[in-house]
Structures are given as structure tokens and as C-alpha cells.
């Protein structure tokens, strides 16, 4: 065997071993393309099915979305109409609110004026009340003066009546005396014993004043502010500055000090008012002793 043959054998062997190893390595590490293609085909089919399903769902969703969009558009239209209606109502309410505010301001002004008027009226009422109280006191005094004047007038009328009766009595006496003189002048004896028909009465004598230590008791006849009129007067022994106690049952109301006395009634001013809630009223008992 020549050397060349040996070299060729070695080279052939080495190359064949190298190529065989390369081929085996390539075949062992390469993929199964048929299987890969099959898997990819299945994946593609799956994707196509899913795409069709998604398309169908897309169509359904699209139609549903269109319907909802139409409904929403209709709702939006209704809402626009309602919005315009509400805007009109709001404008009307705003107008009403403005009117009410104007009325409120007007009424506030009127109320302020009324409050001023009421304050003035209260002041006027107080003044009138004071004047009325003074007028009542004056009236009571005038009534007392009137009673006194009436009593004086009655006394004068009685005195005049007595004077008239006296004159009449004198005239009658004169006529009788003239008749007697005529009879005597004719020489006839006086047979009749005539007397004047008219009888002259004596003047009325003023009754002595009632004793002051006697218990006086009457009732309230009239109440006006702090002025009280009671049912007993000078004929019962009441005099000025006499203090009477006003009671209602067992309840003490107040004291009054007599300021004006008439024949059958008196007037006084309230003093020592213990309870503000209980004022003297008509019918309460009046006494100078408790």
C-alpha cells in the first residue's frame, strides 16, 4: 500500500467522520417542520375561527351599539327639550323671585312704617290714657261739685217753697184779718175762728256727721286706671283722706285713699297694691276695717 493510499484513506476517513457528525448534528437539532406547519395551520384555523367569532360579536355589538346610540340620541333629544323647558321654568321662577323680593321690600317698608305708626299710636294712647285718667278725676270732682250744687239747689228750692208758703200764709192771714176788721167795723162780733190754710214748715236741719269710728262697708262701683269709685259717700260718713281696704273674699287686693266725696259715692286713688296680677274690679268689697 502506497503512502498516497494511506494518506487518502486517512483523509477520507476523517472527512467522512466529519461530514457524518455534521449531518447527524444538523438532523438531530433541526425542528420537525411538518409538525410545526401542522401546528401553525391549526393555530391559523383557530385564529380564523376566533376572528369570525369576533367579527360576529363585533357585528352584534355594533348593531347593539347603534340601537343604544339611537336610544341615547332620543334620550338626549328629550333631555334637550326638558332642559329648554326647565330653562323657561327657571326664568319664570327667577322672575317670580324678583317680584317676591320687590314685594318683600315693599312689605318691609310698609311694616317699618306700621311699626313707626304703632309706636306713635302707643305714645298717643299713653297720652290719651293719661288725659283720660285726668279727665276721670276731673269728672269725679265735677260730679262731686254737681252733687253739692244740686244739694244747695235743693236747699234753696226748699227755702223758696217755704218762703212762698210763708207769703201765702201771710196773705191768707191778711185776708182773715181784713174780714175780721170789716166785721168789727159793722159792729158784728167775730164769731169764726179762722186760720190760714197754708202751713209753714220749718227749715230742714242738716243731719249731724256720722261718727268716724263706725265701720263703713261698701262695694266698688267703677274702676278706671288707679281711680276707684265706691258705693258709699258723705251720707255714710266717708270723708276725704279716709283709707279703705278693698278685698275679694279673703283676698286683700289693695288700699284706696279717698280724694273726692259725694253724698252717695266716693272716689279714691289706689295705694298699696300688693299683687300686680289682681286689680280691683267692680263688685269688690270696700271697708275701712279688715
Amino acid at each position: 500500500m502506497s503512502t498516497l493510499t494511506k494518506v487518502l484513506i486517512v483523509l477520507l476517513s476523517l472527512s467522512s467522520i466529519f461530514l457524518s457528525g455534521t449531518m447527524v448534528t444538523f438532523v438531530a437539532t433541526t425542528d420537525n417542520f411538518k409538525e410545526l406547519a401542522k401546528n401553525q395551520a391549526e393555530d391559523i384555523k383557530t385564529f380564523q375561527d376566533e376572528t369570525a367569532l369576533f367579527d360576529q360579536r363585533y357585528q352584534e355589538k355594533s348593531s347593539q351599539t347603534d340601537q343604544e346610540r339611537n336610544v341615547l340620541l332620543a334620550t338626549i333629544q328629550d333631555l334637550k327639550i326638558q332642559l329648554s323647558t326647565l330653562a323657561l321654568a327657571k326664568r319664570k321662577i327667577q322672575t317670580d323671585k324678583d317680584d317676591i323680593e320687590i314685594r318683600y321690600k315693599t312689605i318691609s317698608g310698609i311694616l317699618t312704617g306700621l311699626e313707626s305708626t304703632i309706636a306713635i299710636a302707643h305714645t298717643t294712647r299713653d297720652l290719651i290714657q293719661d288725659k283720660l285718667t285726668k279727665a276721670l278725676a276731673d269728672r269725679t270732682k265735677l260730679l262731686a261739685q254737681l252733687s253739692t250744687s244740686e244739694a244747695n239747689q235743693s236747699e234753696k228750692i226748699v227755702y223758696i217753697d217755704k218762703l212762698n208758703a210763708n207769703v201765702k200764709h201771710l196773705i191768707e192771714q191778711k185776708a182773715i184779718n181784713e174780714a175780721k176788721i170789716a166785721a168789727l167795723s159793722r159792729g158784728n162780733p167775730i164769731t169764726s175762728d179762722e186760720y190760714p190754710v197754708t202751713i209753714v214748715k220749718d227749715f230742714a236741719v242738716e243731719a249731724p256727721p256720722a261718727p268716724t269710728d263706725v265701720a263703713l262697708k261698701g262695694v266698688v262701683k267703677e274702676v278706671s286706671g288707679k281711680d276707684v269709685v265706691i258705693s258709699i259717700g258723705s251720707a255714710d260718713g266717708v270723708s276725704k283722706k279716709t283709707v279703705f281696704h278693698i278685698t275679694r273674699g279673703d283676698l286683700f287686693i289693695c288700699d284706696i285713699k279717698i280724694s273726692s266725696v259725694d253724698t252717695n259715692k266716693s272716689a279714691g286713688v289706689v295705694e298699696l297694691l300688693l299683687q300686680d296680677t289682681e286689680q280691683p274690679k267692680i263688685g269688690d268689697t270696700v271697708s275701712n276695717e279688715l
Partner: protein
Amino acid sequence: MKPNKTVKTTSDIFTAILALSTGIVVASAAFIAYTCFTYYGEIFKIVEAPRF
């Protein structure tokens, strides 16, 4: 007449190398053939891609 010449069998290291190389080539071919048949069901035919 030619002298009787003795034929000697060549059995040396190179023969062993050749035998080893041949065995490796044959084993590689068998492995490749088995793998191709296992993957594609064919040995010498080029498999076409599936149509979709």
C-alpha cells in the same frame, strides 16, 4: 510459468480506519433516514407545506 505468488490479506490499521469510517457513515445515514421517516413519513421525497 510465473512463480506462485502468495496473496496476503491486508489487515492493518488503515483497514480498521476504513471500516470505522464506513460504519460511522452507515450509522449516520441510518439515523438520518430514521429521523426523516419519523418526522415526515418519507425518506427521499420533499414534503410540501399544507394548503390552507
